[in-house]
């Protein structure tokens, strides 16, 4: 991954995973939008799910 970025995203990911409080972001998993996206119900047209929000709202810590 170093060719892409010197920021060692794997370490960052591991750090976030370790700090994450269990259950945070579970609300997202229960939404219709997420389920349709997760199980391919929308096909290629709905291949992308974009979670948008201000800094600090918890996007990084979504499960």
């Amino acid at each position: 991954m170093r060719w892409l970025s010197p920021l060692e995203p794997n370490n960052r990911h591991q750090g976030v995973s370790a700090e994450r409080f269990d259950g945070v972001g579970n609300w997202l998993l229960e939404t219709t939008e997420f389920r349709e996206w997760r199980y391919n119900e929308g096909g290629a047209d709905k291949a992308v799910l974009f979670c948008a929000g201000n800094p600090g709202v918890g996007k990084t810590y979504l499960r």
Partner: protein
Amino acid sequence: MRSSGGGKYRSCRLVLRLPFSTGADNHKYYGSYSEAAIKQRGHPGPLARGVSKREEGVWWQRPATCGSEGNVENRYCFARVFICLDALDECLPKHLPDLLESLRDIVRESPRTRIFLTGRSHVREDVQRYFSKAVVIPVSPSRGDIRNYVKMRLDRDTEPEAMSNDLRVDIVRVILGKISNV
């Protein structure tokens, strides 16, 4: 993400390091590739069933829906690969179009791929420029999540003797009251 000499496959390097599940038919067709092999052959190389040797690390899975014949691109489609990119807004603006274009190429060639993105709202238009039907979910502070997190941290207080029940209640109340300012 793109490069000359097998650019689209190099893009996939990010993808396939992520864990992904076996196809519904429980068949596994794996292959590994190296960038050198791609440059030499122009594609990742032949697939081998049940390969157990995990060398430099990128695995390819061919779902049963992909025919054994056909051109290279058709053969190298994936079974349910998830690509997760956090903080898309932190990507340099000059690189964002290339990144999104590469993702779009992957989806076109591999329609079962799912892409999960997060970012501030101002990159929404960029995302929708490349994925017009992208599903957008607004993320706002969750009171339940924050309440549970604060309680967990209070439970780990290293000086519990300094804490009273009233103070504990006040801390939770004040922090939850600040949520609207986030």
